[in-house]
């Protein structure tokens, strides 16, 4: 790979500044000439789209926080005031509510892309781990954000999810009271959830930069899953990807706007428009859609601790992906058997999501168990076996070879 030569800045003010803080050279290196594989497709646009979703969440969140009141007696009304009285408050809140769903849709697709094209494999393990950590923080942030409006689903969601900690033998009860700051979900809980809900996105934003730092060190993968071998295999970020990304972001925003403006409560639960009532559990507690697969796994076994551990494992297993899928071929496109396994796995995740929304009764419990076994079997049985027995298709010699040889 060619080494980077910083440009000479002709403008004397730019040059003066850049000698003291090379921010302009940094942007030139990473946003203008940064080499990207010439063959990456639209699946590689979901990262930048996730970043846009994060920006939407941060911006709308900051403005909502100017009106939101983290007091159990006022929280619900303060959100309704945002909806009714604050100028464009309805827009800010609907952007924020649906923005959470958008963020998860984009990140999940981004991660499935990574699983299919082997984006977690050497040399991108650290990049992948940072990403999984971001997902983990997103899950916690989204959960705490859902508690803030202090609707009845907020309250009971908070009760159920924090009570997962009570599954830990011995310290469970003291731990959950430490998280609550009270003997149940109450004022101190709401107050600290607001503080954390504001803190975590800042950490996510910082990790997003570390994610990009790691990315720019090892460069993007590509659908062929082979390394960049020279300048013939790459194109500069600008204008090719600036324009492509902007185009893709526009499509995403149109999709997002449909929900914000025409179906803003599509992802919402009616029960959360009822103020929190500590004496009345809603008849059917369901988490937001993006938690449903994990929620299904939680209910897969007849054991409190077992369910919690399984649910945690279903996310944590992503960290050890580089050691589970050791096939030297990164891209699923050259792995005939893996492709089948991968799409069954995707279908299984969606099926788990559907199951997570069903009542905890038969036949759903049996189906959840089957789907959970398939979920873990993909990681711990199928991938290791494939590494051993699958014969991958031949790889092209270089990224540019299929293009140049066809011409």
């Amino acid at each position, binding site marked *: 790979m060619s080494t980077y030569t910083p440009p000479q800045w002709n403008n004397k003010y730019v040059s003066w500044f850049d000698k003291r803080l090379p921010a302009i050279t940094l942007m030139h290196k990473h946003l203008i000439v940064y080499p990207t594989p010439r063959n990456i497709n639209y699946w590689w646009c979901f990262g930048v789209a996730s970043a846009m979703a994060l920006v939407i969440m941060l911006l709308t969140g900051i403005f909502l926080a100017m009106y939101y009141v983290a007091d159990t007696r006022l929280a619900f009304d303060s959100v309704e*005031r945002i909806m009714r*009285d604050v*100028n*464009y408050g309805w827009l*800010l809140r609907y952007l924020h509510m649906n923005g959470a769903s958008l963020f998860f849709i984009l990140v999940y697709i981004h991660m499935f892309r990574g699983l299919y094209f082997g984006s977690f494999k050497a040399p991108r393990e650290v990049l992948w781990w940072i990403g999984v950590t971001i997902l983990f923080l997103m899950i916690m942030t989204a959960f705490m954000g859902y508690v803030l409006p202090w609707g009845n689903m907020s309250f009971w969601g908070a009760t159920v999810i924090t009570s997962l900690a009570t599954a830990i033998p011995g310290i469970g009860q003291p731990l959950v009271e430490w998280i609550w700051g009270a003997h149940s979900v109450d004022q101190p809980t709401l107050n600290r959830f607001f503080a954390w809900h504001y803190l975590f996105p800042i950490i996510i934003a910082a990790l997003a930069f570390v994610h990009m730092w790691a990315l720019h060190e090892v460069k993007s993968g590509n659908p062929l899953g082979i390394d960049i071998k020279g300048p013939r295999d790459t194109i500069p970020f600008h204008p090719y990807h600036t324009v492509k990304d902007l185009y893709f972001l526009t499509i995403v925003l149109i999709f997002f706007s449909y929900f914000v403006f025409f179906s803003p409560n599509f992802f919402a639960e009616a029960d959360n428009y009822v103020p929190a009532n500590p004496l009345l559990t809603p008849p059917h507690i369901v988490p937001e859609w993006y938690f449903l697969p994990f929620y299904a796994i939680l209910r897969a076994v007849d054991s409190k601790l077992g369910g919690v551990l399984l649910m945690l494992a279903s996310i944590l297993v992503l960290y050890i992906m580089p050691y589970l899928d050791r096939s030297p071929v990164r891209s699923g496109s050259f792995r005939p058997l893996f492709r089948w396994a991968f799409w069954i796995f995707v279908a299984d995740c969606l099926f788990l999501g559907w199951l997570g929304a069903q009542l905890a009764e038969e036949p759903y419990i049996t189906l959840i168990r089957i789907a959970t076994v398939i979920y873990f079997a993909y990681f711990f049985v199928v991938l290791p076996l494939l590494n051993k027995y699958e014969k991958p298709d031949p790889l092209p010699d270089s990224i540019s070879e299929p293009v140049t040889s066809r011409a």
Partner: protein
Amino acid sequence: MADADDTIEILGLTYPRRDFLIYGSVGLGAAGVALVAWPFIDSMNPAADQRALATKKVDISAIEEGQAITVMWQGKPVFIRHRTASDIEEAENTPLSQLKDPQTDAERVKPGHEQWLIVVGICTHLGCIPLGQKPGDPKGDFNGWFCPCHGSHYDTSARARKGPAPRNLAVPPYEFLDDQTIQIG
């Protein structure tokens, strides 16, 4: 692929195609950003429930001559003083040349209601509330109000006379609905 030197004709004028695309995209993008920015900026303006506090009716029938009351309007204190004949005389006879912010007393009250002085009770220096509403309060050198923060003196027409205050206490928009009731705002 289109050549960078291609041109495009709009309203009889010829432009390079590349320029048209770049300026068009950037212009449209800037318009979009401005449209998105507005809801965020406007959300910080007073909300509908705050705007609903814009007017306030006050019954002034119980205020005796020489007394004053303070009411809240838009989150601000409003002084309503029932002035005595000597207060009014003093205010009307002050030559404008002695004032920092020259205004006649007639400009600060409603004709036929000269005994009622209604002003926003916020010192024009740095926003403290001047003393002089309660019977025991210091009223300053001009028998009006005295701001304890930095020593501004106001007269019986609430005009700045001494100290750092640059302007007279503001007269809010108000009207007499009848002899006993005013509506501020």
